[in-house]
């Protein structure tokens, strides 16, 4: 049961909502793989404390003072042949494992959809 707590959107939010839909469309149709610039944006989200803060729990190449609560993020394409599964794990890891320590970045809106797309592309590249 996933309740999407979307309050009534007003016309005022029009511009931002449209920008968001446009932003979302981009990574989806990217068949040629994400650009270096997009990957760099994803890396920043992973490394920044106030954003993904993945380093708090995962070792990632190039990161410092990483935690070891979760497994090191390496060989991700082998571990997640299907990128959508990785996306789902970042979105809400409690679906696959109710006792996971991993925060539900999407379900609890810790990151935006766009940020999670960028992050997924970056993590998948590791």
């Amino acid at each position, binding site marked *: 049961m996933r309740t999407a707590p979307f*309050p009534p*959107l007003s016309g005022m939010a*029009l511009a931002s909502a*449209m920008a968001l839909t446009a932003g979302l469309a981009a990574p989806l149709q990217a068949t040629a793989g994400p650009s270096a610039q997009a990957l760099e944006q994803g890396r920043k989200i992973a490394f920044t404390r106030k954003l993904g803060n993945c380093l708090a729990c995962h070792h990632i190449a190039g990161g410092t003072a990483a935690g070891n609560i979760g497994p090191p993020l390496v060989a991700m394409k082998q571990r997640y042949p299907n990128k959508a599964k990785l996306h*789902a794990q970042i*979105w809400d890891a409690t679906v696959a494992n109710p006792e996971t320590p991993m925060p539900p970045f999407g379900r609890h809106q810790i990151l935006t959809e766009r940020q999670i797309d960028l992050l997924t592309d970056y993590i998948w590249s590791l």
Partner: protein
Amino acid sequence: MNQESPKMKTLSLFRAAGLALVLTGLANGPALAGDSAQAQYEDMYQQAKAAQKRAASVEGEWRDIGKFLKKAQALAKKGDYEAAFKLARKAYIQGKLGYTQALSQQKVDWPSYFK
């Protein structure tokens, strides 16, 4: 249980919302009168306050809701209703999420790693 991925679901939700917005946008004209922006903000603020209270009633309030609402009020005072609305909406969503979370935890017992 719906097996649709959360992303797909939210995506379609967003698309639907986007479409609805385009329609209302066309009907109302793109620029909102200051008056109605204020009214919409105030309505959202009230809803957010209620969501905050409801979350607190089950000990599920999140840390930043109060901060968002304070900031929203300050922005509204300056007349920036669009930014104020966005913050109030964020507070509203967090209130809902905190409430849902707290309800889901009311019957917790020792997790399996303790067994």
